[in-house]
């Protein structure tokens, strides 16, 4: 027990009396019978042990005779490692002497856990967190967190003030070490050990609270967290295993306190309060979406609280992903965020006195999965006016590389479109309509930036064909349909392979603007028509002898018009009845540039 021995004088006196009597009693056990010899030798062994080892020690303790290695002493109440004896000395009047023996066991007992909680709650922690105490505390709390009985014993004496003092002290120590690491580039072995011990203690304190919450469902960690520094509370929250909604609620509270309470000024280095909480939320399924929803009215809390803007952006991207957020909820979140980004980009000032240089491009990542909702045809989804969506979208396509960024997000755009189609019920109808709307919106964005390079034109095509692919895969014709697959699609595939998905030369994009959308929508219409035609043939609605639909011709100046004429002629020749009407409806919905043209005019006229 760390070099000290404590005892209750009265009880030790009773032990000594009983032991004297026992020794005398053993001395009286005698026998001349040889058959008792072995047994009596055990008796004598016990007698000698009492007489020679323990009675002299007890006698000396009680007559205050100083033994060489058992010197009377007084313990500091603030010494953590001897907290158990310290509490017994100061609360129950036990005597303390030095103990030359060292305990082979570090096992924590119930009363030791109680004493530790009492000590942490009644002493000035600032004076007691030495390196060896930190290591011991980490060991003790690890043992306590593993046994519910020890957790209860520890918490019975642990007050809110105790929690606050201890965690604040640990948090301040951690901030100092992290700052030192930032300045010096590294920590020495002692500092690293101290940092590891602090982190371990935070983990175990969180585990203790989690265990209590798990077993006593009414136990609430909020009062404990409410009084400590936001940073210390965030360290605890990491291991509380809160539910998504609990974690989001606690995070909002702590980050708000962090921003308004002056703590931000002392936490510049390393992960701060918001970083710790956001990292925890990223690893808690559902938490990012709840957090983003709760802070929609205060986007600064989202964008401008963490030291790492990449971390905040990862959280926001995760929370606003269509897989994690409904369209209605996104409507209450995304437009406000876009406006915040637009305004902060223009004001050029952030919470930490600098603008986040990545926010412009992040805006593209933010809107990519929800591109469809910015289209005029979907303005009602988010209660936007018909021109507001494209205008809002254009307002954050600020960075020169924004369009390139949008291209890199084409998978997210396509996924967003797929999610929308899949959740809309009438897949066949909506997929066609949504595909048309998406292509028109992409064209609108492209038209806003002059597409005067082959590379730019190629980018527009990449996005467009990604969404065409996504739509085709959701058509009734087949879950995995892709451009170029299927029977009728084979002809289209040959056209695309031989001519490329996009113009290859500057000359080919000379008629840019409408040509790009015209070709793209024509290809999209042909792809959907071919896929649907294949489906109708396979289920017998159209005879297999029917000639396949016409294909778009990339060699003409107006591929849309040419395809429209050829398609109408094909319908007349084939006389497909109801099936023909359905195919015509698909073609009319997709291969129309009217909407895109209208959007372009709106943007151009402001």
């Amino acid at each position: 027990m760390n070099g000290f021995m404590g005892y209750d004088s009265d009880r030790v006196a009773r032990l000594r009396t009983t032991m004297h009597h026992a020794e005398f009693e053993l001395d009286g056990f005698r026998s001349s019978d040889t058959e008792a010899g072995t047994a009596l030798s055990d008796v004598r062994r016990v007698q000698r042990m009492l007489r020679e080892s323990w009675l002299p020690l007890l006698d000396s303790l009680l007559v205050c005779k100083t033994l060489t290695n058992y010197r009377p002493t007084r313990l500091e109440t603030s010494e953590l490692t001897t907290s158990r004896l310290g509490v017994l000395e100061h609360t129950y009047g036990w005597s303390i002497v030095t103990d030359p023996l060292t305990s082979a066991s570090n096992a924590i007992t119930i009363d030791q856990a109680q004493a530790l909680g009492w000590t942490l709650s009644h002493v000035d922690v600032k004076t007691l967190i030495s390196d060896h105490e930190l290591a011991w505390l980490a060991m003790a709390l690890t043992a306590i967190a593993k046994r519910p009985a020890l957790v209860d014993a520890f918490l019975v004496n642990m007050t809110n003030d105790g929690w606050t003092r201890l965690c604040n002290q640990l948090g301040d120590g951690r901030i100092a070490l992290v700052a030192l690491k930032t300045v010096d580039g590294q920590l020495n072995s002692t500092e690293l050990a101290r940092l590891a011990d602090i982190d371990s203690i935070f983990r175990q304190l969180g585990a203790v609270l989690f265990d209590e919450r798990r077993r006593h469902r009414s136990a609430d960690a909020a009062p404990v967290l409410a009084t400590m520094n936001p940073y210390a509370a965030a360290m605890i929250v990491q291991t509380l295993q809160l539910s998504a909604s609990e974690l989001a609620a606690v995070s909002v509270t702590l980050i708000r306190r962090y921003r308004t309470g002056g703590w931000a000024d002392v936490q510049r280095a390393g992960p701060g309060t918001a970083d710790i909480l956001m990292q925890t939320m990223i690893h808690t399924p559902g938490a990012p979406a709840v957090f983003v929803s709760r802070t929609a009215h205060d986007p600064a809390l989202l964008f401008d609280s963490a030291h790492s803007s990449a971390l905040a952006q990862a959280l926001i991207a995760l929370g606003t992903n269509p897989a994690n957020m409904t369209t209605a909820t996104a409507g209450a979140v995304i437009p406000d965020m876009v406006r915040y980004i637009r305004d902060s980009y223009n004001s050029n000032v952030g919470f930490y006195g600098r603008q986040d240089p990545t926010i412009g491009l992040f805006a593209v990542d933010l809107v990519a999965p929800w591109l469809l909702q910015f289209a005029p045809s979907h303005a009602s989804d988010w209660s936007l006016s018909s021109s507001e969506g494209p205008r809002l979208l254009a307002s954050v396509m600020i960075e020169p590389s924004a369009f390139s960024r949008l291209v890199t997000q084409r998978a997210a755009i396509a996924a967003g479109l797929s999610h929308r189609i899949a959740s809309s019920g009438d897949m066949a109808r909506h997929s066609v309509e949504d595909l048309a709307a998406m292509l028109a919106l992409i064209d609108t964005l492209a038209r806003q930036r002059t597409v005067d390079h082959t590379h730019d034109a190629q980018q527009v095509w990449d996005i467009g064909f990604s969404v065409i692919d996504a739509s085709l895969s959701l058509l009734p014709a087949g879950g995995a349909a892709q451009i170029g697959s299927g029977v009728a699609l084979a002809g289209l595939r040959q056209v695309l392979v031989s001519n490329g998905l996009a113009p290859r030369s500057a000359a080919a994009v000379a008629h840019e603007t409408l040509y790009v959308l015209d070709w793209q929508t024509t290809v999209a219409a042909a792809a959907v028509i071919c896929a649907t035609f294949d489906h109708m043939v396979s289920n017998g609605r159209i005879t297999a002898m029917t000639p396949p639909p016409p294909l778009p011709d990339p060699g003409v100046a107006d591929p849309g018009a040419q395809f429209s004429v050829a398609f109408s002629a094909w319908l007349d020749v084939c006389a497909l009845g109801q099936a023909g009407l359905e195919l015509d409806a698909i073609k009319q919905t997709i291969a129309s540039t009217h909407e895109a043209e209208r959007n372009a005019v709106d943007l151009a006229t402001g």
Partner: protein
Amino acid sequence: MPIPSPTVQELLQRAHALRRLAHDIERCDAMLLYRGAGIDTWIGATPQRCLDDLLMARTLLIRATDLLRRNAVTLEQRAVQAGIAERLAVPTTSTFVR
């Protein structure tokens, strides 16, 4: 001069003495010393060593009582054998006559 064999009575008396000694040891204070040497009385490495010693003392004393009782049984078995031998060597009237 040959050593005379113990009589049945002598063997039974010795066995009785061993059983009595085992009984006394079993009820001595040393058996229960450990109860007063726990963490309610004192705490530390030395007290832990003391508690370990007192528990070992209890084990030794229990072993002693077991040994005494085993030896008593042996003596009693010898007494039975001696009794049989005596009866075979010197038949008495009561042996054959009801």
